[in-house]
């Protein structure tokens, strides 16, 4: 294990990766994955990738940064990085997060309390490169040296670091080894926020150097701004797909399902993560069934960005973030709906409800509400005919960080599950103390090279341990089990985790959303809405 790693190693000019995670380093998994020898091996990065790209950090690579052709080019890139670092600490360039960033830079006591809170650091077996303060301490030293122009006294006070192109390239990759779950910030006795440091680093690289993973930028926010959705669906395509889902839902449930588009004056503008429409159509379908059955006045919007709740900008780029949020709010204003209800997408909850709040002024300040709250009212308020015995199988709940720790929606989803799932059981810890699924901040979308290996072995490991422990009393495949993840990206990560470790075959653990459980319990719907098939 690379536990002798020093901060100064980040500046090394050799082309060796800094950290290598061996399966033997990883924290053990519970049954049925408790045979460490059977742990799936990693796919190594190809020699071509190592040759062409700056994969200098660890066993994987998400940015595919090209190698500079010369030392002069390296120096120019370093200068661009330093220019971006300066901008990160100016009001005109970064008013959006300047205050929390400065506080975090100035006041970390380096007590390492945050390390014990980090699922990535813990799961990796304590690899230094994944320690929350490893990344932050480098940025802090660069801040005191290059932004505050500190000299020898500053180096004595804050520590020193040599800036080189390999350090910049490694730092860019390292910004994408944090899920931005902010569990470390929650544990910090002073209130410093290492998650924010990773977020701000991503911003620097994107907004100054144009560096971001293609899955969240070129094929993410840029595609959403061009086509209307990060899935690439334009308005015609999304309407076609929803019509198909309506048809399938009508057949499956025995109820007539017809999604309404662009209804002016509707009570609710529902915005789904459009990935659901393509990957898990039963989720938007179940929403349509439940809302219609309860008599809710609702609509979807076919405006650009408004039929896709995602806003990847919240992970890496303020400009992209604001552009998407403003367009989503504008669609709601145009339709004169009473409120926007955000479907089962964690980061969309946080982005549109909380982070965008201070950007949405005047007529754009259309109220935003969580679908979990609305669904709770329908279930607990008796507006849906429900038979909990239809859900009489073990169910556990994954808390999306964006919904709980970052937004404080903890109980509505539990009220629903307690009402309709007789065998509901919690993971531990849960609620605002939950662990990230390991797919947060865009990771669930990334699968280039061998990143899936890293997600499954490292970032998702803690969640996997939690899931297996929650179902520890019923792991036999004869008993189907439901892992409820009311968030599209979390669901994607769960799908990849369960598939990676063969847990559908071994233990019949299925994943899915929350609204599907509600519709599965509806007595007006044909039994068996949830299909116990792997997908």
């Amino acid at each position, binding site marked *: 294990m690379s536990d002798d790693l020093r901060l100064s190693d980040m500046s090394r000019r050799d082309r060796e990766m800094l950290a290598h995670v061996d399966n033997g380093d990883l924290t053990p998994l519970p049954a049925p994955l408790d045979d460490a020898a059977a742990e799936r091996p990693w796919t190594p990065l190809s020699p071509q990738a190592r040759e062409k790209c700056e994969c200098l950090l660890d066993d994987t690579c998400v940015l595919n940064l090209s190698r500079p052709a010369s030392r002069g080019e390296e120096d120019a890139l370093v200068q661009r990085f330093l220019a971006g670092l300066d901008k990160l600490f100016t009001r005109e360039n970064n008013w959006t997060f300047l205050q929390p960033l400065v506080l975090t830079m100035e006041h970390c006591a380096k007590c390492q309390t945050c390390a014990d809170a980090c699922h990535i650091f813990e799961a990796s077996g304590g690899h230094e490169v994944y320690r929350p303060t490893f990344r932050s301490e480098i940025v802090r030293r660069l801040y005191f040296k290059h932004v505050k122009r500190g000299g020898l006294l500053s180096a004595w006070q804050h520590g020193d670091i040599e800036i080189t192109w390999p350090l910049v390239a490694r730092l860019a990759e390292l910004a994408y080894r944090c899920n931005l779950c902010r569990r470390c910030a929650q544990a910090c*006795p002073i209130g410093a926020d290492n998650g924010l440091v990773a977020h701000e680093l991503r911003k620097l690289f994107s907004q100054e150097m*144009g560096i971001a993973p293609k899955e969240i930028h070129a094929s993410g926010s840029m595609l959403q701004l061009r086509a209307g959705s990060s899935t690439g669906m334009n308005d015609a395509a999304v309407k076609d797909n929803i019509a198909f889902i309506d048809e399938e839902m009508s057949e499956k449930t025995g109820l007539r399902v017809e999604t309404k588009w662009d209804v002016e004056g509707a009570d609710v503008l529902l915005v789904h993560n459009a990935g659901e429409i393509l990957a898990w159509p039963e989720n938007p379908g179940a929403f349509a069934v439940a809302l219609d059955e309860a008599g809710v006045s609702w609509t979807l919007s076919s405006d650009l960005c408004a039929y896709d709740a995602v806003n990847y900008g919240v992970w890496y780029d303020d400009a992209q973030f604001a552009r998407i949020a403003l367009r989503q709010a504008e669609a709601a204003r145009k339709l004169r709906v009473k409120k926007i209800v955000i479907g089962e997408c964690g980061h969309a909850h946080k982005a549109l409800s909380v*982070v965008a709040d201070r950007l949405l002024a005047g007529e754009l300040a259309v109220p935003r509400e969580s679908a979990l*709250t609305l669904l709770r009212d329908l279930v607990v308020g008796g507006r849906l005919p429900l038979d909990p015995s239809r859900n009489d199988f073990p169910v556990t709940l994954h808390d999306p960080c964006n919904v709980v720790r970052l937004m404080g929606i903890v109980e509505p989803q539990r009220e629903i599950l307690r009402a309709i799932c007789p065998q509901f059981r919690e993971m531990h810890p849960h609620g605002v103390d939950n662990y990230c699924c390991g797919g947060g901040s865009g990771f669930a979308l990334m699968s280039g090279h061998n990143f899936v290996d890293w997600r499954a072995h490292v970032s998702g490991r803690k969640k996997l341990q939690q899931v297996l422990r929650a179902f520890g009393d019923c792991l036999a495949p004869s008993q189907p089990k439901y892992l409820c993840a009311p968030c599209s990206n979390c669901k994607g990560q769960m799908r990849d985790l369960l598939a990676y470790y063969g847990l559908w075959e071994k233990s019949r653990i299925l994943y899915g959303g929350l609204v599907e459980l509600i519709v599965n319990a509806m007595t007006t719907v044909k039994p068996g809405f949830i299909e116990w098939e792997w997908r």
Partner: protein
Amino acid sequence: MTMAVYAAICAGVLVFMAACATRAVMYAKQPPHLRWELYPVPHEPAGRARYGGSRYEETDWWTRARRRNLAGEVRFMLPELLFLKGLRDANRALWYRSFPFHFGLYLLGGAALLVVATAIVTIGVPAGAGGTLEATSRGLYRTAGLAGGALAVGGALGLLHRRLTDRALRRYSAPADYFNLASFVVTLVVLGAGYATSGPGFTGVLGLTRALLRFDTSVHVPALLGTGLILASALVAYIPLTHMSHFIAKYFTYHAVRWDDRPAADTRAMARRIAACLATRPSWSAPHVGADGTRTWVEIALENPTEGARS
């Protein structure tokens, strides 16, 4: 020595206050940031604050009055400030060292304030003629001072030991981190030794403070005690120049970031401050941002960098 001690104490207190104020103003004058709260937020109503819930759990939350549970904040902050509860919960091993250190400093600070307050009240009274008030105060500040000094020195030694022996802490520590802790130990030991050896010729801490308030330079300050007081003054001046001023930062990290759930529409002042930020002119260089230093933040946000390319 007396003049040097007086000068050091005055300078130390002035630098401390000026540096604290400067730092607090610097943080307070930062622009408003986008909301970045972290739950639990203790000013939510007690029922919700207990498990970390927020107003977003309520249907049509914007139609309901925003209730701020200030008692909840106080209930959170008191054990946090006095007993470092967060550290105790998250890092017990460090808390065993950090708590006595910080609590010792609180006691020392309390003792110093008590001495000054008593000196002000009894400034016209001859030494030893302050009656019950003076006697009670003396008993209290001696007890608090000695207990505080012992706790702070013990805690600082514990923290220093941990920083030197724990690989993770050592790896991230700068020379100043060791210096800072060692400074507390040296200063408090010298101060304690100076006090213990001050002898019958010394007018006492209260007498010295009264003399300082009158700028009476005729009192004798023993050399070792004087050295301790000069060192302590320097340390007091140094603290707010370093990350150890987290007692200021913590107000902002909690109240202005973690718990700042104020909507933009909450006050006109906030709306005005946000509007001013939206009018700033960024200069980020990546082409997709489209910031050239002349366009405002809001103009950039309203632009679609893919315009004309919609499929």
